[in-house]
């Protein structure tokens, strides 16, 4: 469903700091898979997401989404089929705009943004009903600027915003890393529920080995631009956090960390 073929990505090209991260890198994600990706810093996890979303361009190789070559498409064009949640809770929403206004923008994704009214009472009511099940009391704060909400509330909202309209792929870039343990747990539960309900193909980068083990249908560990562990289905179910940690430490020792 999502294929990366023969990807080459070099950072600081032409300088003494030149760093070849991916060279002839292949990666395939099947329809409906929920892939958890772990790995140390600089292993290429986030770059993988950036390549898929179009934030960075590969030097060589192709990226196919449902068989269509999207390598040459600009980021905002790809975004019509891809949703993304960032680590920084301030990253996914317009923070000076209200909760209702942000939801209105998200709901209209894929359609024209013309001169009709952005919001009306009926829509605001519908958004209230959408937020009520979260149990955060956000349904009472529709006219509060998003920037005034807590990081956790914003991240849950961003998750809703990213998945409000039908998308082919959801990219989660350490989206629980900036949250306290309880909120992180809550965010992961909501993530899992949305991904299951809407059957969205998902790639989740995380530093939390327990989340990687507990959630998702496939688990990948990255190291220096290589996939060193790739387990799906039964094989993934047998992996324990300790196994992951052991492998992780082994890699880190190799790196001299």
């Amino acid at each position, binding site marked *: 469903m999502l294929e990366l073929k023969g990807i080459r990505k070099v950072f600081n090209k032409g300088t003494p700091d030149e760093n070849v991260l991916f060279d002839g890198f292949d990666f395939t994600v099947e329809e409906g898979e929920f892939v958890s990706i772990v790995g140390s810093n600089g292993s290429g996890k986030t770059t993988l997401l950036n390549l898929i979303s179009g934030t960075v361009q590969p030097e060589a190789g192709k990226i196919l989404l449902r068989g269509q070559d999207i390598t040459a498409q600009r980021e905002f064009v790809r975004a019509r089929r891809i949703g993304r949640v960032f680590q920084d809770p301030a990253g996914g929403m317009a923070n000076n705009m209200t909760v209702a206004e942000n939801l209105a*923008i998200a709901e209209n*994704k894929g359609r024209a943004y013309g001169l009709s009214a*952005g919001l009306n009472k009926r829509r605001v009511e519908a958004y209230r009903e959408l937020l009520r099940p979260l149990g955060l009391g956000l349904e009472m704060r529709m006219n509060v600027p998003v920037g005034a909400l807590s990081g956790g509330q914003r991240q849950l909202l961003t998750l809703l915003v990213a998945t409000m309209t039908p998308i082919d792929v959801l990219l989660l870039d350490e989206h629980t890393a900036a949250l306290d343990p309880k909120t992180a747990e809550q965010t992961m539960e909501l993530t899992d529920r949305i991904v299951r309900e809407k059957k969205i193909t998902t790639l989740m980068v995380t530093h939390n080995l327990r989340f990687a083990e507990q959630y998702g249908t496939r688990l990948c560990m990255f190291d220096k631009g290589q996939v060193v562990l790739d387990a799906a289905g039964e094989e993934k179910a047998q992996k324990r956090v300790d196994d992951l940690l052991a492998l992780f430490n082994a890699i880190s020792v190799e790196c001299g960390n």
Partner: protein
Amino acid sequence: MFFLNQMSTILQLGFIYAIVGLGVFITYKILDFPDLSVDGTFPLGGVVFSVLLVAGCPWPVAMLVSFFAGAAAGLATGLLHVKLRINGLLAGIITMTALVSVNYLIAGGPQVSFAQSDTLLSNGFLDGLPRVAANYMQVFFILLLVVLCKVLLDLFLKTKAGFLLRATGDNPQLVTQMGKNTDTYKMIGLSLANGIVALAGSLYCQYSASYNANMGTGTVVIALACVIIGCVIAKHIRPMANTTGVVIGALIYYAILSVAMLLLGSDYTRLIVAVLFVVVLLFDTGLIGRTVKKLFRRRKKEGGDART
């Protein structure tokens, strides 16, 4: 009588700069784009209006054309920034510099005078009124235009397109995530802003019944001061809209400027404008507010000490 005349001048110029402020509000506050092309588009609106009027064009049409001339200049700044990837500040300076020549070429000289033609601020109806009454009638006409611009802008910012324009300045990533190109919205914002500024320029020329090439100097600084004062006011008096704040800010600014000019003479105008801008910026950063509070607290403490 002197006071009444001074007051009407403050209101006339205050409201004209309120319109400039509404334009600059779009770029500075909504798009977070420091647009300096305003110094060129304000006189551009004036010169286009003046030349058309002299050529026999009715004033409403001339005003409309000046709006579009300004919008085109704003689009030029946008294209420089978005397509050629030139820094926003520099893109504005380039447009502003180029417009000095463009304005001169359109005017065919440094000045255009149209004292005989009918305009919004000089027509048969106003000529029939006593001087003071005519001045306040002019204030009323300008105010109508201010309200029209403000209401239309407020309405636009509440449409879907307006939402995305605001999101572009707030968090461009959100606009990208929605599958839209932020470049488009930057260009729309710059066009709209400079169109409004040019409209104000045409009004300024009607106020002085002539076009003068120097009329644009310092427009950006004046307008930014109005916008900043306005947004500080609106922040403290909720639920006042920012746009209402900008209009009030422009009046306050012009009142202060007029008093300062009366005391020091018009030779000091630009110096006063510059110093006032520094004061406004210090207010915006909260430096003045904190200092005043500190002084106040110290005096209170000393007062308390004296009592004990």
